[in-house]
């Protein structure tokens, strides 16, 4: 009986891997990406630029979203100070189950030019698990879009 049950469970699991439903969800996840932007500092200007006509991010279905509850990806860019840290933690907790975090700019990676400063965190990696890094000070808009597309290719 037990063996039968195990086989059944195995079959169901295998089925789930290749099922149509999984394919559909992957397609949905890769074609419409909701991003919550946590911006501060100069890098915020570059994120404004990728909405614009030159680097139109809407072409790939990238949306910028006003609350972390709706987002798939949280994008932390710019200087994160000690005063900002509790707010970021609260936001991260209200984020959904599959947490994906992109750190944009050298400030978010390791403190950047203000590495020696006492007020600045030495990168987001101190508090959370970071999935993608976008280096640069500030990174070019193409680099940010490239990072999002890398996240998108992950589902194929």
């Amino acid at each position, binding site marked *: 009986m037990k063996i039968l049950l195990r086989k059944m469970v195995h079959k169901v699991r295998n089925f789930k891997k290749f099922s149509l439903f999984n394919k559909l969800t992957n397609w949905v996840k890769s074609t419409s990406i909701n991003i919550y*932007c946590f911006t501060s500092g*100069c890098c915020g*200007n*570059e*994120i404004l630029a990728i909405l614009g006509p030159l680097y139109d991010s809407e072409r790939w279905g990238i949306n910028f979203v006003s609350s972390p509850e709706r987002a798939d990806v949280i994008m932390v860019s710019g200087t994160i100070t000690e005063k900002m840290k509790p707010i970021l933690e609260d*936001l991260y907790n209200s984020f959904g189950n599959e947490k994906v975090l992109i750190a944009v700019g050298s400030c978010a990676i390791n403190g950047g030019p*203000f590495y020696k400063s006492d007020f600045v965190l030495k990168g987001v990696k101190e508090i959370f698990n970071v999935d993608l890094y976008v280096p640069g000070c500030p990174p*070019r808009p193409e680099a940010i879009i490239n990072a999002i597309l890398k996240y998108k290719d992950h589902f194929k």
Partner: protein
Amino acid sequence: MENRKIKDYEEIEGYDIYIEPQFRPFGFPVGLYIALKDGVIINIKPEFGYLTTGVEKVVEGMEIDKAIPFIDRVDSSSAISPELTYCIGLEKTFKIDVPLRAKFIRTALCELSRISSHLLWLTRLANVLGINNALHYCLREREEVLHLIELATGSRLTPNFIRVGGVASNLSPRFIEEFRKFFRSFRKNFNMLKTFFLENELVVNRLNNLGVLIEEDAKNLAITGPNLRALGIKKDVRIDDTYGIYDEISFKIPVGEKGDSLDRCIVRMGEIEQSTSIISQAFYKMPEGEIRTYTEDINQFSGNTRSHIECPHGELAMEISIDEGKITKLRIKSPSYNNLLAFSRAVLGESVEDVEVILTSFDICVCEVDK
């Protein structure tokens, strides 16, 4: 949803509404405590300091040339102006001659970044007012200006271009070619942008008589820049205490009348036009020659300097002490800090819906407020 327990705004007595800092779009973290009475704001308290990087401390003990990229990051929207303030101050006290061509290049780049900063402010205003088309047209123009800055300096936002005694590199022929192309199209496009704001009845009605700044407040809080000129007071460092080549170039200073949001809008629009004319004159008169004078004994300098220039937000001043070629002390007086205080005075007596519009109309750069 349940996990979110951001600071309890009810703890602070006397304030009714708390607008959280992270909800402000595109790098604008300022929290606002608002007290209301009969739907009218009677008291407002901005909470800032979310971006304190401590540049002034980080820079201490550095050599003169190494500090320039750090000073860049003070102002996020036009990074070239803090650089210029720093270099001008050092050149004045240590008697370094700057070649004429370098001065022209500096002026042209400063005015270009002034245009880009004002265009960024216009996009923010369009975003807050809800005019979608204008937002994207502003961004398109801004991209073109940034492209020019990138061609000249190598970076879009943080150029790291001005050195003590000149500039880092010469202008390429391609830059001048592209600039001619840009200049032809920009006048036309900018006139179209103007119609979105100043010829739209609804926008004018919305901005008119909104957030009036009294002259007394402006004097007490030491407001400078376009916000002061919107009151009708003609004060500009470029003319009062000229630096660079501004005395060789003819340009007007646009002023407003009442000091409301509409006047601030008109003044900044006029400044963009004046800046384009300044750049074209600078290119017309630009001589050939050296771009930098190298000084050997830069490591033996010691002394104190002061300098101030007109940056897009107002008067940016610096105080530098140097000991044997190393910075021992740096103080920055940023105009945005005073503008933020002016906002908290001008907003009194308005309704809650207009807080965002008035806040953006003051053109506050939070990087500069917190440093």
